[in-house]
């Protein structure tokens, strides 16, 4: 448990024949809460906001996932955060909303490999097969709340609050080795 993980120092957590897990570099993140004229918000930030929970949208480097009836997480390149903030700010008077930067809150694990989905099943009580490629879910992994993005059949991203990262890295490491041992 002497692991320490920082998005400033991306590193490989584990690499086996079953799965490869790495910490990704820091990216900009914004938690957006709003109701009302969502189209106007979409227009301002350049990505229309999906309205079904778990559905994602992506344009020009900005990725958005709907996490609740009035909640979205935006992934924004670091150098575009101010632009997005500014665009949202102009809407504020007529369209009440909350925009909070959470760039520093999260650490992302990139999980890839032939058994990436199986690796998710060691800690996530959801049916992984119901997360379609291009979708995301706020769910649990080994006792911690995570947002799990499925980028391909065998590729996931797992966003987790940074304090949980060392514990989850240890779970992922154990699991990736265990799955690799099954292949042997």
């Amino acid at each position: 448990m002497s692991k320490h993980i920082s998005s400033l120092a991306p590193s490989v957590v584990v690499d086996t024949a079953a799965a490869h897990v790495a910490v990704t570099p820091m990216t900009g993140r914004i938690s957006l809460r709003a109701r009302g004229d969502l189209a106007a918000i979409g227009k301002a930030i350049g990505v229309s906001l999906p309205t079904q929970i778990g559905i994602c949208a992506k344009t020009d480097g900005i990725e958005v996932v709907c996490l609740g009836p009035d909640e979205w997480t935006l992934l924004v390149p670091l150098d575009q955060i101010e632009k997005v903030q500014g665009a949202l700010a102009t809407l504020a008077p007529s369209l009440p909303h909350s925009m909070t930067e959470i760039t520093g809150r999260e650490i992302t694990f990139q999980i890839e490999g032939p058994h990436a989905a199986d690796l998710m099943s060691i800690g996530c009580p959801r049916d992984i097969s119901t997360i379609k490629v291009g979708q995301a879910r706020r769910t649990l992994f080994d006792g911690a709340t995570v947002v799990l993005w499925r980028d391909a059949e065998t590729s996931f991203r797992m966003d987790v609050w940074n304090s949980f990262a060392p514990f989850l890295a240890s779970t992922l490491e154990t699991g990736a080795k265990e799955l690799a041992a099954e292949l042997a």
Partner: protein
Amino acid sequence: MSKHRLRGRGRVDASQPVVFTFDGKPYTGLKGDTVASALLAHGVHLMGRSFKYHRPRGAIAAGSEEPNALIGTRRGPGRFEPNTRATVQEIWDGLETNSQNKFPSLKWDVGAVNDAAYMLFSAGFYYKTFMWPRSFWDKVYEPFIRAAAGLGVSPSEEDPDTYASRYLYCDLLIVGAGPAGIAAAREAAGKGLSVVLVDENSEMGGTLLSEPQSKIDGKSAWTWLEDELAALKEAGVKLMTRTTAIGYYHENMIGMVEKLTDHLPTLPADTPRERMWRVRAKQVVLAQGALEKPLVFHGNDRPGVMLAGSAQTYLHRYGVKVGESPVVVTSHDSAWYAAFDLQAAGAYVQAIVDTRPQVRQDLQAEARTRGIPVKLGHTVTATGGRLRINTVRVNPLNGTHVGNGQWIKCDALLMSGGWTPSLHLFSHTKGSLIWDDDLTTFLPKDTPEDCIITGASRGLWGVEAALKDGSVRVGEALSKLGVEATVSDYTVADDRVGTGVTMRELPTDRSAGKAKAFVDFQNDVTAKDLRLAVREGMRSIEHVKRYTTNGMATDQGKMSNINGLNIAADALGKKQPQVGLTTFRPPYTPTTFGAFAGYHRGDHFEVVRKTQIDGWAEENAAVFEPVGQWRRARYFPKAGETMDQAVARECAATRASVGIFDASTLGKIEVVGPDAAEFVNRMYTNPFMKLAPGKCRYGLLLGDDGYIRDDGVIARISDERFHVTTTTGGAARVLTMMEDYLQTEWPDLNVWLTSTTEQWSTVAVNGPNAAKLLQPFVKDFALTEDNFPHMSCVEVEVAGYPARLWRVSFTGEIGFEINVPAPYGRALWETLWDAGQAYDITAYGTETMHVLRAEKGYIIVGQDTDGTVTPYDAGMGWAVGTKKADFVGMRGLKRPDLVAKNRKQLVGLVTEDQSCLEEGAQIVLDPNQPIPMKMVGHVTSSYHQGTTDHPIALALVEGGHSKMGETVYIPMPDRTIAAKVTGTVFVDPENARLKI
């Protein structure tokens, strides 16, 4: 070849001998053997001693239902497991096994004296024997019972194995891979469904493994099995062996334990010993088969007495003849085939004893052909032999009259009392059962789960019936899954169908009161114990069970429940359903703690949260403590320092110059929206509407009841944005409470909450030199008293990082909290640390933080409050906005008991003898009053490492605020301590030290 092994028989591999030890003696078995089959191949029946009477016992069964043959297994240091069933444990080269419950040896055991004194150990003997004298309970009885109780020896070393867990979703889960389960799988396979077939055994096949004579659709049973399993695998069915479905939970969740390494001679790397599967299946098929019932007669537990069906299994699956001259005693047709098969394998069956006066002609003819003597309408009344049966007493039955006994020599006695459908998992579903008078057993009726039960577990008998039933019954599940239900037809030749009758205790010509006729072998419960329980007033089977412990052993009554019920019902003169069946509970078979713990053991026991600065603390020899899920640096000892010394040094250094503290764990909630101020104002007791941007205010959060729930400093970042802090442990709770109010009480407010606890790393610097240390790193902003007074905040660049800089103090010194985006926390810390060397900067932990705040009388919610303390009790009436229209807890504060006089109030305590009080110690006003004394409060915080010249304490005392200067008393085990009631501020009451 060992003596009783039949060359070329069974599914064991004759080309692969395996050497293991039992009680230190090496034995050679074959790959595929269990410990039991390998020992039986050597003629070893004696495998253990019983629980209560220490009677010699052998394997009575061949599967997981075994109650007797419980052994210890060892694989080097730490890898010891007691109570493993010898009938399940597979052998491998080097496996060490030991018998249990014996001293000094299995063959000569001192504890067997209990057997001679059995009259003392009747049902309920604990309750009767150990009731008086009362004073004997603690010193004599309980230690004795604890020492005598239990089978085997608990492992004493840490288990070096690892355990795993996994979730699994599937369309169809089939439990049990006998004929019915396989037939069900066949109909489901290849239809685009995810299908899982599990079996607890090392091989699939169930009864087919023990009945190779049957021919299915023209193929021999084993060829059919091999082809069928290959086809299932080809069709994508997930086949799992050594996997036990241990429990059936709500909404079709099934717990399964897969044993991965217990059968392997060497342990593969990175492989857990067991894996718990948490399965969510849309549909479940239960095909767990049936378990054979023992017959109940005097001496039915002697080694060599075995279930007839299990003898068949040993013969056909393992190629082991369990006896050369066996006798068969039965009330069911099935055991006749055991006699025939053993005879065919070269044994000399001495007799088939059947309690029924009439038996099928073809069976009798077959026995005649084979030259086996047949005794119809006979009973067994005794067995002889010390550590192995060598004779059995057989008597003719004439109605209820039992004729004279005749002793028949034998080396094994194979019994069958018929078969009981295995309804354990079905019962877990809260499925209802229906009594079947013809079969004298319960059968499954309805279940609230999406679950189908098939084959022998619903009372069907024979391979063909099971195959057809599995094929048909799974159709219902397939239809629900939206695929076409198909049915395959099966023709089975040489199928062994049969019937029988159910017996209670076998009739005897001897005293039933002296008979040791066992019903529950593992808990040593006899038929007379059950009848005694009824005589002594037990009416429900639940009471009979608890009084006698029948069915309460680790085998969950697999063999004993139905016999116990039949006997109890007879004793009560009622029908079985009126007496009831005890509830089966998970797990189906004994399950290791490791399987339940999974990955959560050792340093992965529980979620541990670490700040981004934790690594620095670890490198600098911090001692950590858990605070909720967080681990926090408690103190930073220098070489040779105790905690008290380190804390005293950290306290003094912070008040003398500057201390640095990781406050990142503080809960943080960003409250944003046009109604942000209104929301914060309604939640907290303090007024917030007029708090200007750039200012901070302390906030007190109450529950509806008016009691303090949480506190923290709240900063107004802008008109519509607040940065709220909570206690470390309260972060999630406070956010939930706020969301609750927002969503249910005030959905009209335009405000949103976002947890930002982990967005920020928070570095606190405190001390007279704090501003001097920090100033050079703050860009274009002066840290002066005028420009940045106490309780201010500003968004500014600190050491090159975007920061929310606060001027607050939890120590009474000049204090700053620098919030930077979390990943920069450590770099900021190190920058300040390096620069702070000029000021002898000291890192301090939570312990010093506690002391310094107590010296200023700042409360810690949850330590100085306990959910029954109001702001007024805590001396914090100043924090309550009396002019506010409303806030959470406002009405609660007006309740009569909350405004009553003499409530417990927070005060300071200073001891007269300079001793440090114990936190939690009770307080009295008059130490000379008679015991029990009236307690008027307790010590909530107490420290002696601080910067005052005497220890300090905070305490809740009845009417404390009006007792200033009075003396109260704290009785301790060795003396009574006198303490003076004081205010709660011990350092700098004028707050002069807060000024820059």
